[in-house]
């Protein structure tokens, strides 16, 4: 079993393989690279190929074989993001690479006693600082101990396996936990009003000049999507190691709708030819298309894209303006 635990690095917090001893540091905010990296890694080798005169063309499948991995300190928004990813990678074409990793993963969440970011807005998007969706265990920090809820069979088993560490909560602890949860929600500073009104409004705005203005400052770096816990778009490429005999591998990597190449046809035609069209795609995917497909937002309000955008594009502001556009 591997354990991933919050660790402070120069650029922020990471989820790093570690011995899980002691408490999660009290100044932990959120992992800059969300936990999706351990289930849908930035690079996944699909298979290796080799072609020789003797043996012909051989493909060697490289489905991941991994021990159970416990990720500790998953923020509730990131748990909900994993639940959204589950839907994308299911359906009539199940993604075996994703599900190998997902089934080996136990998500131990940490409720937010205070919002990890000034830009947190989970409560505007059907989430909360103590949301349980997608998680296997939810911890709430009571100061000198954790209030622990086993949420899934996987999570309950983890607790049973170490039962000496746990005791049944007292009524007082239950009350304290509920109080902390409520206070956590009240401390959220940012709000996106009436989010469910957005999809029908956005549906009317595809051809609006609104997107040009909204995207003016974008430098198309893609950070908003790479570090988004729900973004799942990817590229598939062949990496050739040798030509004669041919040897190489097919690799999936994260990709972003913010790059022109993402949709450019080999003819040079590009159905999303400018950054306005690409910002529109990002927001419509999250707040319209995903809602049409799965009846949920593809945004969990984690605040990363607001915190990390180098030019300060503020998704809450853009969406609020969109809702009032032309009104």
């Amino acid at each position, binding site marked *: 079993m591997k354990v991933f635990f919050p660790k402070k690095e120069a650029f922020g917090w990471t989820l790093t393989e570690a011995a899980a001893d002691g408490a999660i540091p009290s100044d932990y905010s959120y992992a800059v690279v969300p936990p999706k990296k351990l289930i849908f890694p930035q690079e996944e080798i699909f298979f290796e190929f080799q072609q020789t005169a003797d043996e012909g063309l051989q*493909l060697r499948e490289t489905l991941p074989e991994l021990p159970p991995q416990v990720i500790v300190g998953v923020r509730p928004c990131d748990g909900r993001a994993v639940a959204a990813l589950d839907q994308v990678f299911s359906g009539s074409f199940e*993604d075996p690479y994703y599900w190998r990793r997902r089934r080996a993963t136990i998500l131990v969440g940490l409720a937010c006693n205070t919002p990890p970011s000034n830009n947190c807005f989970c409560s505007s998007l059907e989430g909360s600082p103590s949301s349980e969706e997608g998680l296997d265990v939810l911890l709430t920090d009571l100061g000198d101990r954790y209030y622990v809820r086993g949420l899934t069979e996987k999570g309950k088993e983890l607790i049973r396996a170490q039962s000496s560490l746990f005791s049944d909560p007292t009524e007082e602890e239950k009350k304290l936990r509920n109080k902390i949860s409520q206070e956590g929600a009240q401390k959220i500073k940012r709000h996106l009003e009436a989010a469910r009104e957005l999809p029908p409004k956005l549906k009317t705005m595809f051809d609006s000049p609104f997107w040009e203005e909204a995207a003016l400052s974008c430098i198309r770096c893609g950070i908003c999507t790479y570090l988004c816990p729900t973004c*799942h778009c990817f590229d598939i490429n*062949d990496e050739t190691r040798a030509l004669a005999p*041919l040897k190489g591998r097919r690799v999936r990597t994260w990709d972003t709708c913010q790059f022109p190449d993402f949709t450019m046809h080999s003819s040079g035609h590009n159905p999303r030819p400018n950054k306005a069209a690409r910002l529109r*795609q990002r927001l419509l995917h999250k707040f319209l298309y995903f809602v049409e497909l799965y009846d949920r937002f593809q945004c969990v309000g984690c605040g990363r894209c607001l915190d990390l955008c180098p030019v300060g594009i503020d998704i809450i502001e853009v969406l609020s303006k969109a809702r009032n556009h032309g009104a």
Partner: protein
Amino acid sequence: MEHNVYLPRIGQIVEVKEEVKGARPIKSFRVQLLDGPIFPFRCGQCAMLSVFGKGESMISISSSPLQTDYLQFSVLKMGRVTSALHEMEPGDLIGVRGPYGNGFPVEKWKGKNIVFIGGGIGLAPIWSVLQTTLLQRADYGELCLIYGARTSHDLVFRQELTDLKAQIPVHLSIDVAEPGWSEFVGFVPQNVLDKKPSAVNSIAVTCGPPIMIKFVIMALKDLGFEDSQIYTTVENKMKCGIGKCGRCNIGHHYVCKDGPVYSWAELKQLPQEY
């Protein structure tokens, strides 16, 4: 072991036919799968072809599903993968996964007349439907093909088109007059207006360059075709083929999975992002 949707089957090219030479070359490839018979598919569906070391490309299957000895792909040389494919010869090995997409609802069209309208390489997806309707000739009404290309040298399946004339009306066109050309000169939509296929109990299937499709649809509307009688295909850049990699969408539709076939009634409801 779970099914791995990303792992291609190995296909062997058994025949290569040079359809069009010159700056925009087209070749047709017949492919058999090494590990067994080809997969069942529907007219208009596509397959992801691999040239290992180069990558994958989504190509429509131009043979009929009723013809199960091989899969045929007619490929315009355009990018990295299609250029590598054009270098390949009979005996060479490629990867094949699929079939993908929705396909044409040919079962629903039984008893109807079908007018096929193609431009350039756009005849490839049409060819699968056309061959299928010819193999089940009694199930369909009048069939006719209106097909054009820039020059007579850019027409694909030339021998097959000559043979086809013995079975159904075939109206060819080229954009600019050439010595010895006795058929229509002008763009495909003009030829449609010239030949005036009847809209009564008919379906129109059109594939080709987007600008051609746009004007063909206008021509068909002039001739009395309803939006729901007109079918076309959409192309977008694709990587996964299964609606996950996120780039081929128009609105909430993934063209690889929910398309590429749309009636005009359906397509005009979606954002113009293709």
